[in-house]
């Protein structure tokens, strides 16, 4: 048996029981790697449950910066007897299994290294408080790992101090637990582990944060003042992040009053209704939800589309259909968001790929919604939203001001002879609006979801209604010119074959392209960042004979959207689809593309795993 030897390139997986306090210790482990200067991508794989079921925390460490999920595990910290068998199976040959040897066990695999640490025994001997005995097992293994991986233990001592700032009493016992593990490993487990972490500088200028935290912060920077939401995994942490950041950044000093209003609504319908009411009245309001919430909100989304009320929604996609896999990731709301609601409707989608873009798109969504006077849906997913990502730090331009779009105030109304709420004055399909209370005699109108004319008057005249619907289509054209451009991996196209992808798939795509490159397959790659698609998207599609569309859903929803919107021949677009609820991997993408190109019989490269 040959041991896995690696420096700064490996996957470590923690198998825990949920509710055992492991998450914060595991996060601390990942942060320690990040602080060592090595890019890291932790993924929390958790059940829809509060206590007792298996939960995993998978950390990919990659100095090369490959931050997508990778198949196979090099080190497993097996803390859950319930999942021993499964955890053992996933371990690569030559890998390492660390377990609580207070109860010895034979793991029946001769091609792995078993690392025994009597975690429970150590904690029982050292701590008298039963809660601490349980919780500190997690810190003890972090301490042991810091020795085994040759890390600087001080990094963890500092992290503990930071984490318990304000609760100083907890620092000493935590540091004690850390040392307990470190010392045990130093005395008993010398030269066992050949996987190492070497200090690097690859996280300079980078931050470690989640997409939802970044989006919540982006809403603060984008000027959102009203947040109405209903708890649903995996979007809840976005509203919570907005709350936390608002409490820190948006309280008026003199009065101690809030420059924001947050309501946990009675359901998703009310949440979106409140966001619409706020935007109608000139404040920036938003809601955050997941797929089931989008279904519930659809009637209101149609109202905002037709009555042309700005609205910002975050859809943090999870495994569907129905309740589906609420704690697993998917990109399966593309179509339900693009065309949400009855009647002819189309919506603006923004699709971020890392927390930095979550921050930027969140802020930009409010400008776009105000400018286009329509719902803007930021389409994120569980993997991006809830997991921490290594990404470039946030930037903000202080000279930037909010663009509230075409709004007429009292002074403007004085000068205007003929105000029509839905008149296309500028020829771009975007009309002018007024806020309630703008002027004593001018600018009032009746907002309605029923058919209306240019002056917002109810009409059942089919010609007038068709004219309005056509203008909305023109507005949608204008929207395509305002949304973010796609991003290309290459400066100029070099291949007749291309790949199209979006969102959190970005993390695995560079690695997949590199793997294909090693096989001699060179592809042009385009990352979609928004809907409606703009000219650059259509040109890329036009310029290639064959296009792979990589998605994390079953039905190739983005492919459908591209075919429907652009009249693209289906044969030209080949789906690469992962829908097992795990983040897509580079191996999966490169294998599917490679086997298709080498004459796989299937037209579509589909698979769960």
């Amino acid at each position, binding site marked *: 048996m040959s041991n896995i030897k690696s420096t700064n390139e490996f996957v470590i997986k923690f198998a825990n029981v949920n509710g055992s306090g492991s998450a914060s210790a595991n996060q601390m482990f990942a942060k320690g790697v990040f602080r060592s200067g090595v890019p890291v991508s932790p993924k929390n794989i958790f059940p829809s449950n509060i206590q007792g079921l298996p939960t995993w925390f998978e950390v990919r460490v990659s100095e090369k910066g490959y931050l997508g999920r990778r198949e196979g595990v090099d080190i497993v910290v097996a803390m859950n007897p319930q999942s021993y068998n499964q955890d053992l199976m996933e371990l690569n040959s030559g890998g390492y299994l660390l377990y609580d040897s207070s109860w010895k066990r034979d793991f029946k695999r001769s091609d792995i290294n078993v690392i025994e640490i009597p975690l429970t025994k150590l904690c029982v001997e050292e701590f008298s408080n039963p809660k601490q005995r349980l919780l500190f097992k997690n810190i003890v293994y972090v301490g042991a790992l810091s020795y085994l991986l040759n890390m600087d233990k001080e990094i963890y001592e500092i992290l503990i101090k930071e984490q318990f700032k304000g609760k100083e009493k907890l620092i000493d016992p935590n540091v004690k637990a850390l040392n307990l593990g470190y010392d045990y490993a130093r005395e008993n487990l010398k030269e066992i582990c050949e996987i190492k972490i070497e200090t690097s500088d690859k996280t300079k200028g980078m931050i470690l944060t989640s997409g939802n935290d970044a989006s919540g912060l982006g809403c603060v*920077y984008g000027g959102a003042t009203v947040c109405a939401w209903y708890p649903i995994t995996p979007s809840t942490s976005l509203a919570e992040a907005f709350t936390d950041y608002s409490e820190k950044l948006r309280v008026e000093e003199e009065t101690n009053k809030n420059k924001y209003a947050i309501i946990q609504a009675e359901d998703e319908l009310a949440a979106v209704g409140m966001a619409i009411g706020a935007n109608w009245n000139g404040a920036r309001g938003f809601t955050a939800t997941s797929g089931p919430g989008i279904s519930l909100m659809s009637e209101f989304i149609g109202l905002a589309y037709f009555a042309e009320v700005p609205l910002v929604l975050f859809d943090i996609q999870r495994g569907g259909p129905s309740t589906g896999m609420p704690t697993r990731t998917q990109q399966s709301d593309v179509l339900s968001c693009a065309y949400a609601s009855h009647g002819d409707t189309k919506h603006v989608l923004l699709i971020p790929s890392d927390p930095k873009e979550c921050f930027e798109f969140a802020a930009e969504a409010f400008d776009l919604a105000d400018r286009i006077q329509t719902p803007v849906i930021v389409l994120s997913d569980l993997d991006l939203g809830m997991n921490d990502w290594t990404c470039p730090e946030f930037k903000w331009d202080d000279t930037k001001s909010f663009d509230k779009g075409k709004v007429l105030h009292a002074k403007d109304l004085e000068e205007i002879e003929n105000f029509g709420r839905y008149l296309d004055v500028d020829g771009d399909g975007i009309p002018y609006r007024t*806020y*309630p209370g703008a002027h004593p005699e001018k600018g009032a109108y009746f*907002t309605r979801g029923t058919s209306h004319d240019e002056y917002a008057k109810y009409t059942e005249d089919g010609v007038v209604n068709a004219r309005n619907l056509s203008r909305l289509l023109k507005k949608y054209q204008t929207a395509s010119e305002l949304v973010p451009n796609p991003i290309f991996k290459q400066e100029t196209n070099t291949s007749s074959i291309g790949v199209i992808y979006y969102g959190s798939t970005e993390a695995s795509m560079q690695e997949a392209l590199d793997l294909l490159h090693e096989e001699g397959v060179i592809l042009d790659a385009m990352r979609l960042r928004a809907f409606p698609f703009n000219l650059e998207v259509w040109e890329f599609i036009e310029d290639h004979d064959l296009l792979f569309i990589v998605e994390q859903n079953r039905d190739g929803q983005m492919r459908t959207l591209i075919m429907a919107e652009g009249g693209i021949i289906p044969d030209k677009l080949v789906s690469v689809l992962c829908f097992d609820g795990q983040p897509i991997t580079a191996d999966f993408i490169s294998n599917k593309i490679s086997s298709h190109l080498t004459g796989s019989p299937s037209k579509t490269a589909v698979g769960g795993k």
Partner: protein
Amino acid sequence: MTYIVKPKNHHPDLEKNELGLTRRDYEGSISSLCAGCGHDSISAAILEACFELSLSAHNVAKLSGIGCSSKAPAYFLNQSHGFNSVHGRMPSVATGANLANHEMLYLGISGDGDTASIGIGQFVHAARRQLNVVYVVENNGTYGLTKGQFSATNDLESKSKYGEDNLFPSIDLAAMAIQLGASFVARSFSGDKEQLVPLLKAAMKHKGFSFLDIISPCVTFNNHGTSTKSYDFIREHNESVSRPDFVPLGKEITTSYEEGQSVQVPLHDGSLISLEKLSKDFDPSNKASSLAKINKAEEEGKVLTGLLYINTESKDLKETLNVVDKPLNQLNEKDLCPGAEKLQAINKDLC
């Protein structure tokens, strides 16, 4: 409905209010509801209340859901912004609008289908949160716009126009509102302008959730002999708890009452609602008393009207959420965007 366009000119001697405006200045478009519809009387009462209070119409926002009642906001206050939202969801839109700018007056116009069925959840939570809104239910016990189905406020014993039995008991929205914590709850009748106008005025001046359940007969589908929401039935069975009189700020009470026969409740802005007690065993500031009175009236087959409950002490939603006094929709980048320097500090915390 009529199709004759209203003339723009009006008589120079029309009565003017403190703003120098006439009632005509508070009008809306021509109603498309059936001739004799109770809802039109309510629109007229709202117009009258706004005129008498000298409200600036542009500082009022009218919001509604879907149904005959929800069409009504188009028929008064042309200078106010209006929002005809989706069925049963007016309360959420009103909540968002109110949070964006708490300085305006929000009139929520709903119906019994809109509130007691499809929108009951939103009604419940808006009341519970003390949203500062005047919430009017134009209650006719029937789905008019879809041609006469029973609504959830139709009484059990009340038959349909076509003789069908109603199988399920009615929901008393006023009693419900009291239980939910609404701080102003009244019931009235579209045909009783003398009671309705002062109640509306007081509701507009009250801070918090002001709920008015207004029985408003549907002349087309629910005005027959076996209906308990017909004009005749309400007139015969109306039991008023008190005769309300709205006394604006700085005005003296001119009506004289017998000793112990009246109660004055000061409202948020210093105006008063003066209630001439018509019932001895009733205290509108006591929830239990109000609910007992409503229940007793129901047992006796009567429709209890008037100001049923009032609490001027409670916080409204904006206060509970501790929102700044400047309306949120007037805050700009300076107020809202923390800027690059703060962001750099946040970046530091994240590495």
